[in-house]
Every structure is written in structure tokens, then in C-alpha cells.
């Protein structure tokens, strides 16, 4: 699993530029799926037969895209101005390495040296509009030989293990979800399932809106990453989820109301099997499940891996939490298939 996540995180896939991720997943899924289709929204659908056919389609979804930027403009001195793709706090950008365009041209984001700042300046964080990527170009002309407006810019951060059983890297959100789906596809399934790798989640679940209309699922599960709140800068009563506490099951969020009956069936089975889980205790965030309002109605199941420093160059996750998510997703398929039993 760790190796698969590592490979997925080594790819750049800013929303709208998911092709490298899609190609990798397609190749990986080829020997595992009974049917693979793509659509005009950039989604990838993999159908795999299980032991039984469910009463209505089961769909499990993870998104391929990651937050990043597009080149907004190239300045006279060869610097690349930034247009954000998805939600990124500009405060996590200063001092970071970036990859620009399809060929991953290396660049960096920084601000002038501390020696040139005043104490007052250091209390304020620069706005995104003042930041730029420096690829080492001496002029606009030199930069334009390699980069053009509209090119994607992704974090450049090596995936690696961290501490004890943790991993760190960029785009853990949601390559972890993609890896969980691919690992499930390697198994014998209890019920037929559509595995959907969606595009453009970070800009408002744009890919999933199309996907739900295509599959029209009766049961729609999401494998996502969510902000782990258990860091010292967050008071415990505001923790949404905690790292090292298992996969997080959603109650409600800004986009969806999740099916209580389905969640309770999964929880009962998880208890029987001794699979750790937690409930996502805040209603913050939204994900692809929100796209179901465009469908004809499905029982929603939200499952997230807690990730610290989400939407940063270096996010952190706990491998046993991912193992828990894999088991909970497996239980979801079984419980969705047997929903009315």
C-alpha cells in the first residue's frame, strides 16, 4: 500500500491536469477490472464484478486531482505569477519547491531575505498576488521558452516515511483514496462495484457531478482525506478527526448528509471485526459526495483518512489509519449490497 501511495504521489495532477494520474491508475486497474471507461469530464470508471449483483449500483469514489496553481502571467524579470487551483493557504508557500508544467520544470517560491524586512512586515503574511515562482530565468524571454500562461504548478515534495508508521508528501489528498480503491480492486469483491476516480474535486466536485449521472448509484461511498485536527495549534474541542484513530466516518458536512443506517451497519460490522474507526465530529469541508444532489438519490457513505497539514507540500498520514480505511471501504461494499437484507 505504501509503495502504491508513493507512486501515486510522485505524479502531478492539478485539477484539470490529471492525465498522468489517470494513465497510471488505468494501467494499474487494467488487469483487475472487468470494464474501464473514461468520460469528457476526465473521470475514470472501473467496473469490477463481485460474487453478487447489488439491488442498485454501488459506487466508490476517490479523486485524482490535487491542489496547486496555474501560471497566471510571466513578469518582465521572468517570474511566474500564480492563479490558485483549489484552497491553499498562501502561508504554506514561502520557501517551497514547485514543479511547473508537464515536464516538471523546477522552481521555488520565496520572499526577500529576513535582513531586508521590518519587524512589522514579518507579522504579516504576503498575499498570494505578491508571490511568484522563480525558475531561475533571467528574463521573460528565457522563461517563455519553457513555460506559458496556463501551465499547471504543483508542489515538488518527495514522498517518504516519517517517524513511526507515518508517511509524508504532497497530494496525499486524495492519492491515498485512489490507492485504497486500487487495493480493493485486487480483492474478490462481495458485490459488483463501480470504482470511480474523479477529476476536479478540488474546484468543487466538478468531475463527480458527471460521474453520478453516468452511474446513477444507489449507494455512493467516498474515500477521501480530511484535516486531522489533533495538532497543538487546535483546541481539542475543535478536533474534526484525530490521526492514529482509524478511518473517519462522516455524519454531515458542508455538501452532504450521510446515510445514518448505512453508517450504523458499517460500524456494527467494524466492531465485530475489530476494525478501528472514528466519527468526523465537525461539519467542515465537503467532497465528491455533494455531487449526489445532481443524481436521482443514493445512500451516501463518507470515509476519510485523517491527514495533517492537508493542502501543503508536506502532509502527514498514519499508515494504520489507511489500513483501517481499506477495511471500512470493504465493509461498505458488503453492507451496501446487503442493505435491505
Amino acid at each position, binding site marked *: 500500500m505504501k509503495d502504491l501511495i508513493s507512486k501515486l504521489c510522485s505524479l502531478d495532477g492539478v485539477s484539470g491536469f490529471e492525465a498522468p494520474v489517470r494513465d497510471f491508475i488505468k494501467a494499474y486497474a487494467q488487469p483487475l477490472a472487468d470494464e474501464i471507461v473514461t468520460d469528457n469530464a476526465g473521470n475514470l470508471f472501473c467496473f469490477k464484478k463481485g460474487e453478487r449483483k447489488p439491488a442498485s449500483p454501488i459506487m466508490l469514489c476517490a479523486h485524482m486531482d490535487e491542489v496547486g496553481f496555474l501560471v497566471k502571467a510571466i513578469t518582465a524579470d521572468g517570474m511566474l505569477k500564480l492563479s490558485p487551483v483549489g484552497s491553499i493557504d498562501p502561508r504554506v508557500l514561502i520557501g517551497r519547491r514547485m514543479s511547473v508544467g508537464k515536464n516538471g520544470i523546477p522552481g521555488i517560491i520565496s520572499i526577500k531575505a529576513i535582513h531586508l524586512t521590518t519587524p512589522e512586515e514579518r507579522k*504579516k503574511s504576503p498575499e498570494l498576488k505578491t508571490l511568484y515562482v522563480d525558475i*531561475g530565468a533571467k528574463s521573460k524571454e528565457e522563461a517563455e521558452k519553457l513555460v506559458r500562461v496556463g501551465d499547471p504548478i504543483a508542489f515538488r515534495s518527495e514522498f517518504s516515511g516519517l*517517524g513511526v508508521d507515518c508517511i509524508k508528501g504532497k497530494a496525499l489528498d486524495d492519492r491515498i483514496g485512489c490507492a485504497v480503491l486500487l487495493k480493493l480492486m485486487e480483492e474478490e469483491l462481495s458485490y459488483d462495484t463501480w470504482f470511480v476516480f474523479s477529476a476536479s474535486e478540488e474546484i468543487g466536485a466538478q468531475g463527480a457531478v458527471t460521474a453520478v449521472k453516468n452511474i446513477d448509484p444507489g449507494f455512493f461511498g467516498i474515500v477521501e482525506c480530511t484535516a486531522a485536527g489533533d495538532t497543538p495549534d487546535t483546541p481539542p474541542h475543535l478536533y474534526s478527526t484525530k490521526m492514529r484513530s482509524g478511518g473517519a466516518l462522516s455524519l454531515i458536512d458542508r455538501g452532504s448528509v450521510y446515510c445514518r443506517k448505512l453508517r450504523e451497519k458499517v460500524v456494527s460490522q467494524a466492531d465485530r471485526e475489530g476494525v478501528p474507526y472514528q466519527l468526523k465530529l465537525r461539519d467542515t469541508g465537503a467532497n465528491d459526495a455533494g455531487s449526489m444532489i445532481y443524481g436521482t438519490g443514493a445512500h451516501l457513505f463518507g470515509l476519510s483518512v485523517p491527514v495533517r497539514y492537508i493542502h501543503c507540500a508536506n502532509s502527514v498520514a*498514519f499508515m494504520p489509519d489507511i489500513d483501517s480505511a481499506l477495511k471500512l471501504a470493504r465493509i461498505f461494499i458488503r453492507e451496501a449490497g446487503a442493505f435491505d437484507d
Partner: protein
Amino acid sequence: MEALSKLKLLVSEYGVSGDEMRVAKAARDLLAPYAECEIDEFGNVLGRISCGDDSAPTLMLDAHMDQIGFLVTEITPEGFLRFIPVGGVDGRMLPGSELCVMTRRHGNIRGIVGAVPPHLQSGSQSAAIAMEDMTVDVGMTGAQARSVISVGDYMCFAGDLMPLLGGRITSKALDDRACFVCILEALRRLQGKKLSVNLLITATTKEELGCFGAQMVANRLCPDFAIAVDVTHGKTGDAPEVECELSKGAQISIGANSRPELAEMVIEAAKKNNIPYQLAACPARSGTNAWTIQPAGSRGVCTMVLSLPLKYMHSPVELLDMEDVKNTGELLAAFISSFDGRCRL
């Protein structure tokens, strides 16, 4: 070994002020082909090149080895590290960055500086997060972290050297390892040449905290002349007031701390050999080791500051042009080979 390979090697060794022994060894190994080398008990690297005349004056060429970093001050019960900076660090470069924790008995481990997830922020994103409110996540529980990390362990920015376009590179600790490479480049060019002065090459400690290493070395060895080779700010879009620019050669400072007489000779050497250079007025303290070297010993030292242009100083992604490194080395060599050891003040 090429200049870039030497620099790559030097920046890969960690050496925060007060903990320079590892990088000192790397610097000594690179200097050894050119000079008689030793490392003093404080971690300063000293290399001597004799001109064959013990009574000839001594010219000290100095670059500092230490880099900015952090000290662990607390390991929380949950396993997060709290810390203070060592040297001038702008805290705004930290959230989401990767650090290396140099543990005393368990080697180097990685850590991530935490940042409040955007979904949970109540304050404005335009307010900088104070360094005392940040923590480092090493992916361990409190007990696990305590078993490998101690309060007082050093940390610094992680990340190797990364080439950019057209000979430009980015890395941590280019300040001031790149200037040591400039000196090595000069020595390579001077090999086999007859000199009129004895050379003392120093890779010194604790510059970032007050230029202490160079001060003790100068007081102990009392050179006649010294050139502090250090980085200087290159112009960026957010610092248009900076005069110096990358890719235009070394910057020669002129002022009380960078003697005009010595500077004049370096300018002459540059002109004579068609080596690009830039000038800077240096009215008072230079902010380099030249400040503490100048009053050393009972006679003082005739000091000069030669600077390598660099953008984003003290960030994890300092940026410079290798062409400037080459030109700075060439200028040093041109000056030294022409220097007769006389400089009337």
C-alpha cells in the same frame, strides 16, 4: 571534482551554528588537495599555503561554514517539538516546510512544521503565524519522540541542492558554503603559481550568531590581510531597492570595514582580467566576518569584503548563479596572484 559537485556535497552536510563539526570535515576534505589542513577544537577549518617565505605577510581567505537553524526546546506529550531559531530566520518560511532533526544518538530524522489547516482557521491568512506557536511533527507519539529526540537537539531546513535554468541553482545553506567553493575555485586556479604572500584559508563557525569563529581564529593567528567572502542580497521583485544583481559577478565592498586600498587592488585585478564585478558602498559594519576579523590581534587586520550575489537569503531555497561562483573564484585568484603583500593605508 567540479565546483557544483563540491557545493552539492557541502550543502548536504548539516552544520547549524555551534554544531559545525560534520560540515567542517567535509570542508577540510575539499581543501586538503590545496593546503595543509587542520580542524581546531571549536570546529574551525584552517588551511595553510606557504609561498616559501615565512616572513612574508599572511592573507586570510574566509568563508563561514555554519547555517541558520533551530533548537528543540520542548517535546510535547503528543510528540510535537517546540523550538527557537538559531540565527536570523523569518518564521513565515516555516509552515509546511520539511526540517531535519539532528538527534544525538539516533541520526538525522525528518520533521514537518505544522500549519493550521485552512478549514480550521479562525484568524486572517494575512497574519503571520508566530514561531512560538509552531510545532514540528516527527510522526511519533510522545513516548516514541522522547526515546530518540532530546531538548537541545539541532534542526535545520532539509532538502538538497536543485539545479534551475541556465546554471542557476537553489538550496539551503548556500550562505555561505557557496563562498567556500569560490575560495576552492581560486585555489584551483592558483595551483603551481608563485605567490608573494602566505595564505590562510578558513572555514569558520558561528558567523550567524555574531561572527565568533572568525574572531577567535583571527585573534589567534593574526593575519595581515583578510578577505571575508560571503553572500549578499540579489535584487528580487519584492526588494527592488537592492542594487546588486545575480549573474553580474562578485560584489566588491568599499568602506571602513572593507578597506578602500585593498578594494582598489581587487578592482584593478578585475579590470585587467576582464572579470565582471559590482561595487557596493559599505559605510559601517559589513555584516560579515570582516567586522570581527578587522580588530583582531594587537595590530588589527586589513580587511575586505567580497560578496557573492544570492536571492532569498536564509530561506530553504536560496538561489544563485554558478557563473557568479566561477567569476568570484577567478577574481580572487587574479587578485592573489598579483598581490605583492603591500597595501599602504
